[in-house]
C-alpha cells in the first residue's frame, strides 16, 4: 500500500510542479499587462471591479429606462421621444 501511496505522491509532486510553472507564467503575463495599461491592482481586485461595473451599468440602465417610462406616461408620448428630447440614444451602441 505504501508503494502505491508513494507513487501517487510522486505523481502529485510532478503535477504541482507543472501547475506552479503555469501559475508563474500567468502571474508574469498579468504584471506585464498591468504595467502596459498603467493599472496597479491585484487579479482579485480587477475581477471585483469588472463585476461591480457590469452590475452598476445594468442597474443604472434599468433605473433609467424605468424613469423615462414614467416621464413618457406623464407626457403621453413614446419613451423614444423622451430620449430624443434628452439628447441620448436609447440603444447602447459601441
Amino acid at each position, binding site marked *: 500500500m*505504501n508503494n502505491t*501511496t*508513494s507513487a*501517487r*505522491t510522486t505523481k*502529485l*509532486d510532478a*503535477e*504541482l510542479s507543472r*501547475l*506552479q510553472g*503555469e*501559475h508563474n507564467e*500567468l*502571474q508574469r*503575463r*498579468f504584471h506585464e*499587462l*498591468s504595467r502596459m*495599461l498603467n*493599472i496597479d491592482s491585484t*487579479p*482579485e481586485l*480587477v*475581477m471585483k471591479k*469588472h463585476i461591480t*461595473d*457590469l452590475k*452598476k*451599468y445594468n*442597474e*443604472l*440602465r434599468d*433605473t*433609467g429606462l*424605468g*424613469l*423615462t417610462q*414614467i*416621464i413618457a406616461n*406623464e407626457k403621453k408620448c413614446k419613451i423614444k421621444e*423622451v*430620449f430624443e428630447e*434628452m439628447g*441620448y440614444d436609447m440603444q*447602447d451602441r*459601441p
Partner: protein
Amino acid sequence: MVYSITPIERSTNKVAKGFRKPGGFTGFCRQGLGQEGITERRRADEIRALKKESASIESAIKVLNKHEKEQEVQLLIDKWKAICQGAMAFLMNSTLLKIGKMGGYEELVKKEVEAEKRKFEYQFSDQLENEIDGILESDDFKMLSEYDQEDLRRQMELKREESKAFQQRELEKLDAKTTSCAEGELTMEELAKRLKVDYNLIFGE
C-alpha cells in the same frame, strides 16, 4: 505512544468483553493515514489552491486583454447616470408642481397619512372583529360549557385589547410622519424613495 480511547473503542470494549480486539478501527485509520498519506493529502490541497488561484489570474488577464471593453462600460455607466439624473430632475419639477396645486408638501403628506390610516383601520379592526364574530357564532362555540365559553370570551377580549394597543401605536407612528415633515420640502432623496429607485446609485460617487 499513548492513544486516548475513542467512543467507538469504548463501546467495542463493552460489547466484546472477553474477546481480543483485532487492532481496532481507529488503529486501522491511523495506519492508513501515515506520513505518506498526509503528504499526499497536502499535495492535493496545494494543487487545488493553485488551480483556483491560476483560474482567478486567467480571468483577470482576459479582462485586461479587453481593456477597451471596460472603458466602454465606464462610459455607459456615465451615460445612464446622466439619463437617470436628468429624468429625476424632470420628475422633481413635475412633482413639485403637483404638490403646489395640492396645497404644499405638508398637505400632501397629511393626505397620504390619512389614507394610510383609513386603510389600516379598515383592514385591521374589521379582520379581527370578523374573526371573533365567526368564533362566537360557530356551532363549536355553542357546544362548549358555560365556563369554557366565558373563558374563550375573556381570551378574545384580551386579543381585542392587544390589537387596539398595536393599532394605537401604528397610528401614532403615522402621526409622527406628518409632524416630521411639517414645514419640510420634498427632497430628491425622498422622491427617489417614493419612486423606489436607489438614490445613491444615481447621485452617489
